[in-house]
């Protein structure tokens, strides 16, 4: 009976939410991007005098007067226009992981999954895969500003390789102190670059580097640096999680 009423309630909410939001969806589907912040982000014309104007020149490879030259606009938004969000987001992850470790870390020590026999094939392949996967992770977050990847994805892949090592080799142990240093280092560097922005340009996380040519690796000013730091930080954090759950004291 309770379930019945739950369904009724949920359906009613769906009705109200849906029908409340639909008419305006229509309005804004029609003139979709033109009045949105997203438009100026795409055109890199935030600080232009008429932010909503269309820029008709081809950006790629020639435009040097845009605000940042990251080919990936999503990355521009994440690491440049809304970098403060990303700082918060990185911290959320950092803190949540700290919390998880605080809650479970101690009680899970010595509970490492040790296999009676190592898996020969896995063991052998992990030795080759480890550098390659890490390399790939690095590749992802280094190219975050020109490809769809980014710090979080890259970091996840790097940490995944640590997970693989724990499952492949019984005697593998992550040097977690190094990871902690890396984590702190990258977090601090993020902030320091932000503060340098204040010192040099006047605004927190404001770019003070050359923008380069869009689509090239060395482009986008601070963006790749920040994203690499995010990648390193996430790598270190997630690796630490793996360590806490898998590692023994």
């Amino acid at each position, binding site marked *: 009976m309770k379930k019945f009423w739950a369904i009724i309630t949920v359906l009613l909410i769906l009705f109200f*939410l849906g029908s409340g939001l639909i008419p305006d969806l229509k309005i804004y589907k029609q003139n979709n991007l033109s009045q949105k*912040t997203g438009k100026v982000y795409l055109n890199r014309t935030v600080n232009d005098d008429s932010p909503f104007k269309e820029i008709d020149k081809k950006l790629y490879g020639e435009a040097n007067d845009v605000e940042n030259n990251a080919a990936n606009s999503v990355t521009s938004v994440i690491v440049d226009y809304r*970098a403060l969000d990303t700082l*918060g987001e990185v911290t959320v992850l950092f803190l949540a992981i700290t919390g998880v470790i605080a809650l479970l870390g*101690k009680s899970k020590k010595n509970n490492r999954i040790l296999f009676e026999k190592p898996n020969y094939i896995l063991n052998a392949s992990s030795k080759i895969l480890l550098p390659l996967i890490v390399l790939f992770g690095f590749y992802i977050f280094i190219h975050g500003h020109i490809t769809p990847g980014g710090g979080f994805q890259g970091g996840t892949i790097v940490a995944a390789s640590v997970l693989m090592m724990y499952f492949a080799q019984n005697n593998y142990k992550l040097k977690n102190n190094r990871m902690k240093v890396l984590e702190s280092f990258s977090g601090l560097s993020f902030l320091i670059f932000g503060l340098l922005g204040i010192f040099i340009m006047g605004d927190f996380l404001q770019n003070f580097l050359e923008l380069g040519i869009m689509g090239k690796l060395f482009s986008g000013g601070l963006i790749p640096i920040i994203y690499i730091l995010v990648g390193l930080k996430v790598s270190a954090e997630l690796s630490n999680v793996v360590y806490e759950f898998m590692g023994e004291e």
Partner: protein
Amino acid sequence: MINEPVLLIVIPLFAGFLIPIIYLISKKAIKYIPIIAVFYNLFVLIRLIQINSTSLSYFTTGGYKVPFGINLIFNSQIGIILFAINLLALIALIFFLKKEFHLVNSFAYTLGFIIAISAVNGMVLTGDLFNLFVFMELAAIAGYIIATHKRGYYPSFLYVIISTFGSLLFLLGTITIYNVSGTLNMASVSENLVDVSPHFIVVLSVMFIVALSSESELLPLNAWVPKVYEKTSITGSIFFGSVLSTAALFAVIKVLVLVFKGGYEYLFNSLTIIGLATLLIGEFVAFKQRNVRKIVAYSSIAQAGLIISAVSVSLKNGTITDSIFNAAMFQLLNNIFAKGLILLGVGLLGYYSFEKLKGIAGKKKFASILITIGVLSIIGMPPFAGFWSKFFLIKSLIANKMIIFVAIFLASAIFEVYYYLRFIQNMYYEEFDSKIKINQISAVSYFLMISLSFMIIYIGFNPSSVMKTISDIFTGGII
């Protein structure tokens, strides 16, 4: 010397990121980092308050102009609210490092606390809806960690579920707003949120009402409050009672003022009713409690209800600031000190139930007097700070002909006076149970309490100047 409000967010974060490294070197050394950071924060704040005027200014980040980048809003009034919040955070922090550091996982807790301060500052400062969501989540996670400090796993779970529910609704609303207004900047949302259907506004409003009620301790999402207050450490209770709740309330008010400032009568009417219901129910339930922490928790809920209803009443007609609004902000400021003082004091006595606090004033005279100052301030006894907030509130409400509001407020105030005085009576005039062990209170703790009492008395004797300093928070350069 750089004078950017963003420093208030960055400095604690910096300390937070530094802690893991320092922890590797020395486990004790991490104590000093947060203290230094918050002190520095206060220092920066004083500087910022000095150089900023009372009109609202927008600080850009990343060099992107308003409203496209993430902006922080700041003026001297916000500075003062922030100063109070950070001061309380500092007090809680000092207390934590002195007394509770060794208890559980000092590393995670210290980290959680310092990052929470950053998040709380972010919540107060940010002028961007999604950024507010991020900081709210950050503060919430810090809150979850702090809530588990004394193995209160179930309350913490409850808190997570309820708060996540709220923040998901908030996110839903934020995205919807972005979709129709094309911006996430609070102030510019309100300018672009035109030509939308009334149903849309209703749905959006309700979404925001329910979403924001979790952190601001409003019904129906405030059930976590008493549970968490009850089961956390002293530091935790101060954090929730004075630091987080104030910042969250301020953030909610900010959203209401900046985003919904004009023409959302239904939203504000509903909020007024919800706020008043929260006020009454909070006071009713507090009336029945015999545990000080629960009393403070429910009274905190009630205060939040009062503040929100007063704010929404004052915003209903589309005018941003008037005397009711200012009185509500004054109340917000006062609550920081009074609640902090009571929670700290009672925490220092070490017991929360009436049974155990019986007659404890006879053994701990000075501490009891200090607690009493906090209590008298909350119940609105002149000449303490709390009296003036009631004074200003009643005055402004009557000036706006809100007689029913005043009646409800007064009825609830009488309940409040009753149960707080019952607490005092229990503390002073009951027979002390000799089996109860009396905790020693260190000089530092006394110092912390005295400084809070001083604030209460100071405001009590300078009400109009303090009122003048924090009033009209949101006037000025709204774009």
